[in-house]
């Protein structure tokens, strides 16, 4: 199908990206404010009454960057990848349009109380801190909108399958749809938390809520949401980056196997966020720890397959020797450089993740700045930097323009990596060595220790560098859309060929039923008993409090 056959799909993607980048733009400003506050320079006084406290700023930073930017970028990107990979338009376009409108309406609804300091509950919104009902309803609508869009893509894949019986689903479409299937199942936790606990309670229909049950439902979604962020990146690393590097996907079957394992293992791991919680048996926490170790396995497989795919590219470009192929990779292409560096950072994030998942070591770092460092390596750097790299071909494609100043984009990518490395390293150290608590207005804390200061200053330097780098990213994107020249040749979605014909991939790696059954069974085994216990003993005794 010709490119102009995707006019609606391209427009939808562009709208998603626009909102995603708008949210990131706003949310990013609070990063430097936080790190400067920690280092002794408090600028929040100058922002009142617009922004009334550090914690309102922190809520905006978390919700806009971690929830809004990611969700809108991902749904937009996966719509694009699915239709381009299947080479067919959306099956029921109105469904995806409705989904997008619901997401956007939900975002508006949640944004108003956030901006009015009526929802300064951070992006985890643990009750009984009680935000305005509009905040909960708005976020719920964002999730529901993403479901509607997902269903639109399921129909699109089903239509393709009916037209191509017995043919392997193209890898990019497969990975994209699998990500959304996983998200649909995973987000049932947060949906239940919202519908049964938080929304009726914030509307005053019930007097109290059950904070531990709410936390448990939150983390049912709260861990797999990181795979909802990561898997679209893996779609790009496996399915596109090898092409950008001049190589081929090293193993189509193992790429698919990794995705299936993520479907099965992403969800039954959430209790590792609750190792320090009372009221949940260590036995179930232990099971979730084991499953968290298991979900590290497909990421380790990914490391091999993706690096081997890039090596094929480096060698095809004339690289030789054990490491010579690394130098010949297309480092000058900012889209490639961003994603290759994101991968390198993710290796460190992965090691930290295994530490966090470990029963005993987690207690050393739980709720300390270590976690903030970890989160910024994984989501803040590996995911966001990959999205940035993707934007460097996707935005030119959508706008029909050349990327404005690839050299500025290269500076942007490297300064982002440097800033994030400094920021994250100092946060890891502060958390591990001193147990400095996260999400805390440290500059005003009476217990602020002089030992921490040099590291907090380092974190501030790193944080400001990341902020400046992101500002450059916005300039590049806007200049590409509005000030760049029409592209000389069409910019297409990079699609990596597999080293071996995907038709050789065994059929069980393209069959949904067994994997979906395994997913449901594993969730039932790992979450069924502890959730049933909490639900059977539900205790709606905590009234809402607004103490910010």
């Amino acid at each position: 199908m010709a490119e102009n056959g995707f006019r609606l799909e391209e427009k939808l993607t562009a709208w998603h990206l626009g909102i995603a980048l708008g949210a990131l733009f706003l949310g990013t400003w609070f990063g430097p404010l936080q790190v400067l506050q920690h280092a002794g320079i408090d600028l929040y006084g100058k922002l009142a009454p617009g922004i009334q406290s550090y914690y309102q700023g922190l809520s905006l930073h978390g919700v806009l960057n971690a929830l809004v930017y990611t969700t809108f970028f991902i749904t937009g990107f996966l719509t694009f990848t699915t239709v381009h990979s299947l080479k067919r338009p959306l099956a029921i376009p109105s469904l995806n349009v409705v989904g997008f409108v619901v997401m956007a309406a939900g975002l508006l609804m949640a944004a108003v109380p956030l901006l009015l300091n009526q929802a300064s509950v951070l992006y985890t919104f643990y009750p009984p801190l009680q935000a305005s009902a509009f905040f909960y309803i708005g976020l719920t609508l964002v999730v529901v909108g993403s479901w509607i869009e997902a269903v639109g893509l399921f129909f699109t894949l089903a239509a393709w399958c009916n037209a191509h019986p017995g043919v392997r689903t193209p890898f990019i479409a497969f990975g994209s749809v699998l990500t959304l299937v996983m998200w649909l199942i995973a987000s049932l936790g947060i949906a239940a938390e919202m519908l049964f606990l938080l929304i009726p309670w914030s509307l005053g229909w019930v007097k109290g809520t059950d904070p531990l049950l709410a936390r448990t439902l939150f983390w049912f979604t709260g861990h797999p949401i990181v795979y909802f962020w990561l898997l679209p990146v893996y779609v790009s690393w496996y399915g596109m980056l090898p092409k950008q590097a001049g190589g081929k996907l090293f193993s189509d079957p193992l790429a698919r196997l990794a995705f299936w394992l993520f479907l099965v293992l992403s969800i039954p791991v959430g209790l590792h966020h609750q190792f320090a919680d009372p009221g949940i048996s260590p036995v179930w926490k232990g099971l979730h720890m084991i499953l968290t170790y298991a979900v590290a396995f497909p990421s380790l497989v990914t490391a091999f397959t993706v690096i081997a795919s890039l090596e094929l590219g480096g060698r095809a470009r004339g690289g030789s020797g054990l490491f010579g192929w690394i130098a010949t990779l297309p480092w000058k292409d900012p889209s490639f450089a961003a994603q290759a560096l994101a991968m390198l950072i993710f290796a460190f994030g992965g090691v930290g993740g295994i530490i966090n998942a470990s029963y005993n070591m987690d207690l050393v770092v739980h709720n300390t700045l270590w976690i903030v460092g970890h989160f910024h390596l994984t989501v803040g750097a590996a995911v966001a930097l990959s999205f940035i790299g993707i934007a460097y071909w996707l935005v030119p494609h959508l706008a029909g323009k050349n990327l404005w100043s690839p050299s500025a984009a290269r500076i942007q990518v490297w300064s982002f990596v440097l800033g994030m490395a400094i920021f994250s390293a100092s946060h890891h150290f502060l958390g591990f060595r001193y147990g400095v608590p996260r999400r805390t207005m440290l500059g005003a804390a009476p217990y602020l220790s002089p030992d921490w200061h040099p590291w907090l200053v380092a974190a501030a330097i790193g944080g400001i560098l990341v902020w400046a780098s992101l500002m450059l990213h916005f300039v590049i994107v806007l200049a590409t859309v509005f000030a760049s020249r029409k592209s000389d040749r069409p910019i297409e979605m990079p699609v990596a060929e597999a080293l071996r014909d995907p038709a050789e991939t065994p059929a069980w790696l393209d069959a949904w039923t067994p994997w979906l059954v395994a997913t449901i069974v594993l969730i039932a085994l790992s979450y069924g008993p502890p959730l049933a216990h909490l639900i059977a003993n539900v205790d709606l005794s905590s009234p809402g409090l607004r103490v910010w």
Partner: protein
Amino acid sequence: MNSLRIDPYEKSWMLASGVLLFVFLLAVGASVFYGFRLPGHESRIDPSRVTVDPPFAKPAVIERAPGRYDAYVRVQIWAFVPSEIKIPAGSTVTFYLASPDVQHGFVIERTNINVMVIPGHMSKITARFDEPGEYRFLCHEYCGVGHHLMFGKVVVERRS
């Protein structure tokens, strides 16, 4: 029917990955074998009664046996009550913590004594203090606009 083909190098990598994760798991298992315990104790408490009923209405440190203490701490916006706990070196202290309002956290600096305090549940965690000195404890869960003000300390005194 096609079978799954895996490159020999990748096969070794996958095997090594599996072994590595298994060894990590054994290491965690060993710590449990040697006595490490996660929090997870279940004891429900009505948040509206925390400030009214004993033991949290007037929380105190009680010596249960020589060298063994129970420390009851009310964790509320925005203070630990009591905020100072004095014990002699070599003591084992079991902390019982309850919140009358929102979620809080309890971490003793530079240790693995780390537990959430969630309304509706009493948290319990045990620590042994051998070295004299001051050990600060902090709230590490966001609990409102005064969150950063919450801290206290365990003062471990030299045995006379």
